[in-house]
């Protein structure tokens, strides 16, 4: 056990929340960038593995049924390998085998089943969702939940609901992060799915910023017949943002009638309202809130990066003039600073301990 963990244990002992000697915790969690390295090498190995199958076992691609069976076996094999007690080599091997197997299964779904696009994407989403739940590996789960969210988005887009996906994704991500510690046995699973959803959300919001034209381009001119526009999508994300603020207030035992609750909720509503135009602010804000609520620096960093990304790309949006954008940003800036002034006035520095 490290000296820092010993300090945490001492704090818990002092608070009467644990008892006895500190457990032997020799295992050290890898930082996020080491996990990215693992994901990258797994993906690269999977590409070469697919190349091997394509060149040496070309018959696999001749029949969808064969591709489905081989792909399924590979995923099953990866699952079996991942159940072996933690070993770096097997972890990499399983990731590569699983990713290559998934590519074969997706190929079989598209090539052999002759399904409508929306159904095919939905099947891919369900496959990835089940892998996110079942596969006993953190990186695999993040990847699968990310792909599941993207595939679900594609499916829903063909049904005309592209702009509501952001709200749905944000709600699911919020559920994961707000309840990450509630079920200790499922904690790692919930966190991995939460990361996958947040990454997908940032990417989806980014593409949504470029509007319907991008969608048409992406879908090769198909008539998408959207039944919900960008504003409905932004309103939905706003509702989720208010739910997150409300949930956090509840966590700290704040009643609805209390001054701090009313201020926080009104502030959140106002912020969501002004960011209807500068889309993405709400998403960035919620990611940061979720991150800060769990002392999760990776999430906070993702929130900051997404905010910088959305504000920078706002310049390039073509559906409104720079003058209109300037006015919107002026209002957003003033509202934010006004909210800050209100917060500092209503909750002076010496009173915050009483409130929480």
């Amino acid at each position, binding site marked *: 056990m490290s000296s820092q963990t010993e300090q945490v244990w001492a704090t818990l002992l002092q608070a009467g929340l*644990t008892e006895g000697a500190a457990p032997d915790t020799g295992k050290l969690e*890898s*930082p996020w960038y080491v996990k990215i390295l693992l994901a990258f090498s797994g993906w690269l*190995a999977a590409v070469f593995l697919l190349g091997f199958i394509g060149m040496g076992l070309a018959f696999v691609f001749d029949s969808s049924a064969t591709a489905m069976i081989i792909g399924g076996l590979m995923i099953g094999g990866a699952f079996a390998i991942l159940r072996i007690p933690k070993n770096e080599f097997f972890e990499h091997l399983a990731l590569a085998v699983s990713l290559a197997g998934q590519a074969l299964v997706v190929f079989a779904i598209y090539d052999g089943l002759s399904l409508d696009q929306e159904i095919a994407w939905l099947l891919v989403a369900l496959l990835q969702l089940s892998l996110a739940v079942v596969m006993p590996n953190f990186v695999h789960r993040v990847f699968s939940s990310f792909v599941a969210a993207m595939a679900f988005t594609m499916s829903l887009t063909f049904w005309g609901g592209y702009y509501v996906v952001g709200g749905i994704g944000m709600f699911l991500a919020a559920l994961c992060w707000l309840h990450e510690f509630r079920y200790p046995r499922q904690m790692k699973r919930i966190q991995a799915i939460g990361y996958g959803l947040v990454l997908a959300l940032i990417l989806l919001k980014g593409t949504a910023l470029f509007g319907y034209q991008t969608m048409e381009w992406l879908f090769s001119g198909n008539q998408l017949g959207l039944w919900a526009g960008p504003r409905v999508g932004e309103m939905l994300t706003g509702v989720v943002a208010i739910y997150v603020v409300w949930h956090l207030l509840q966590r700290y035992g704040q009643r609805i009638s209390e001054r701090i609750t009313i201020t926080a909720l009104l502030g959140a509503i106002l912020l969501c309202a002004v960011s209807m135009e500068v889309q993405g602010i709400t998403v960035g804000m919620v990611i940061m809130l979720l991150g800060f609520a769990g002392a999760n620096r990776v999430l906070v960093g993702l929130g900051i990066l997404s905010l910088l990304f959305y*504000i920078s790309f706002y310049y390039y949006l073509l559906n409104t003039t720079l003058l209109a954008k300037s006015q919107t940003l*002026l209002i*957003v800036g003033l509202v934010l600073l006004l909210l800050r002034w209100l917060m500092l006035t209503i909750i002076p520095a010496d009173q915050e301990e009483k409130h929480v």
Partner: protein
Amino acid sequence: MISPRSQFIELMEQGAIPVDKIGDALKATKVAPDGKAWRTFIDHFLLWLGGLALAFAVMFFIAYNWNVIGRFAKFGMVEGLVVLAIVAYCRFGGNSASSKVSLLVATICLGVLLAFYGQTYQTGADPWQLFFVWALLMLPWAIIGRFPAIWIVWVVLLNTSLVLYYQTFGGIFRLMSGSETGLLWLIFILNTLLLAAWEVLAATWHWLSERWALRLLATAGGVPLNWLVLQSIFADSDAGFLPGLVWVLWMAAMYVVYRRTKPDLFILAGCCLSGITVSVSFLGRYMLEDGSAGSFLFLSLVVIGLGTGAAFWLKKVHQECQS
């Protein structure tokens, strides 16, 4: 240093914290922030986002070139904002978040002012001059600001002016000219020198030692070098050994500095990623020419082997850093 969150998760995984006491334990260990921390967080969030939104509003307004308002009014507005931001900086004091935001807003407005000057008087200056003069004029503020974000803005401006200069004149000081390769060399050299200078200065001024800024600079230097090496591997003509040689030296220097002197797992992980990419590209370039299935399988195993080795080594370094 392990974050309190990671320590808490470690203990939870061991089942050391009773389920019914997890909520209280989160608060006791400050993984769930207290009221003071929340207040500071929301304060900083609103301040930074609000300040940046105002600065961007000014930038967009000037970029729109609205004719209804005259140029003197526009100059007055932007100059007024610069002065206001500096007054706010002086008023809030040197080290508060408000003063840092004020200085950054002043810096952005300064760039807007320079761009508007060029737009109004059509000085005939090249675009690189705008960014270079901007970097030059903001330098005193960066010096008194004493926070990494403003220095990163300065670095970005310097990089931008260098790229624009190169694109305008097709080279620099007649030393490097013409191709995209020359530009990649310049970006690599500039950012590596800045990284070295930053590391040296961070020993004296501790406010410079924030890891995110150093990691950003290391990435800004490493990416162009890797691109150069990949270009030399995949180029049809003989691109020479220079990129490969410099890459080997750069990797060795990174190892010495960030493994031995100032351990930094992020930069070491980046070097491992670079090592895997370059090695596999080199092998792939020559092995996949015949397109045999065996080569693909071999490369797949090489990637898995290298990835395993890198992850194993990084975990060892991580453990050493924590003990």
